[in-house]
């Protein structure tokens, strides 16, 4: 709600939109200025859970009434997504592991839904929240670096698990020490391997976060135009429409990229080099 016209209020507006609803776990109070590790972004985690729950509820509902005959509309949609994910997994992941396809499906749909929150008008939900007494609300979970790191660190854990599962501790140790430069440069190989593995979750999460955060910021900046007179209002509408159309692409693409890279990383972990 950019009510004022001065520079200060515009900044306030943007900052307000970028501030999470925080719960300080040490004092169990809502505190927008809370710092430290034991703070939870209530808005991020709640929207994340709601969207994940929506995904599971919808897919479970279809899965329970699934028919091998002619599929209904909802089943058709679900099967399309499942088939799409399955194709990606089969093309990218060597061999078969029962975890990979469900993991990829969860990531794809969940991240997609979280990204889609970006397309909700930026002021709608925060305004409603203000109505029920919540001063801050950031509605797009994937613009929260904690959420994206939560996903990518889980993926890192799975990469580690997959390495152990397919090669054993010995195999993994040998590979980390001798690849890619041979046994003589073992420390260097290990260092390189650690950097390589750490780069994976960081690039995964920062890519998603960066894209969505930037997109959200642009939406907020465009929303600022709406209060700056008739000409800028119309310009703002046009820009908002354009950016939203473009963002539909970004939303889907980032979910897809996150999923595909997860499969690729796990595939690399499962393969012997």
């Amino acid at each position: 709600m950019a009510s004022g016209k001065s520079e200060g209020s515009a900044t306030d507006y943007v900052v307000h939109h970028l501030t999470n609803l925080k719960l300080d776990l040490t004092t169990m109070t809502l505190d927008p200025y809370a710092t430290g590790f034991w703070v939870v972004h209530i808005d991020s985690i709640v929207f994340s859970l709601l969207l994940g729950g929506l995904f599971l509820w919808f897919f479970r509902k279809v899965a329970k009434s699934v028919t091998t005959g002619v599929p209904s509309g909802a089943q058709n949609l679900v099967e399309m997504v499942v088939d799409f994910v399955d194709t990606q997994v089969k093309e990218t992941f060597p061999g078969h592991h029962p975890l990979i396809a469900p993991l990829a499906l969860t990531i794809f749909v969940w991240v997609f839904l979280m990204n889609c929150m970006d397309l909700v008008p930026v002021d709608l939900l925060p305004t409603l929240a203000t109505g029920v007494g919540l001063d801050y609300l950031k509605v797009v979970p994937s613009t929260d670096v904690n959420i994206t790191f939560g996903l990518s660190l889980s993926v890192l854990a799975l990469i580690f698990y997959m390495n152990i599962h397919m090669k054993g501790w010995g195999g993994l140790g040998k590979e980390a020490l001798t690849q890619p430069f041979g046994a003589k440069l073992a420390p260097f190989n290990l260092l390189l391997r650690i950097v390589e593995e750490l780069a994976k979750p960081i690039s995964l999460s920062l890519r998603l976060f960066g894209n969505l955060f930037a997109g959200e910021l642009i939406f907020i900046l465009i929303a600022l135009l709406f209060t700056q007179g008739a000409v800028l209002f119309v310009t703002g509408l046009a820009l908002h429409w354009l950016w939203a159309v473009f963002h539909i692409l970004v939303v889907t693409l980032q979910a897809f990229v996150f999923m595909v890279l997860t499969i690729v990383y796990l595939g690399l972990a499962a393969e012997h080099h």
Partner: protein
Amino acid sequence: MTINATLIGQMIAFAIFVWFTMKYVWPPIASAMAERQQKIADGLAAAEKGARALQDASSQAEAELVKAREEAREIVASANRQATALVEEAREQAKVEAQRIREAAEGEVDQQVMQARTALQKHVGRLVVEASAKILRKEVNADVHNDLLKQVEAQV
């Protein structure tokens, strides 16, 4: 953008969501899709088999038809032959019969002619004798010349 406990919450949620998907969402959908794929493949195979069977049956029917037509032609031909033979035989018999009847009739005619001639000769002989007797009444004694008369009669 500060890292805080939200991260842990998200990781726990992620683990639970993936577990749920792996256990309750993916298997039924994937197996239903695989089953449908199998059904479609089976259906296509069955359709192909049916088409092939139909083709076989129709070619077999065609062959049967050709054979039946051939047989019918043969039957008609043999019937024709038989009929001709029968007619021929009947004609032959009729000819023989006619011949026989004619010969019998001719024989009878000959016989009757013969009889008539004999009767006529007897009659003429008697007439001659009677005439002769009338002429010779006075000179010829019936008793005396009976032998002679009989001889004449026989000669006539």
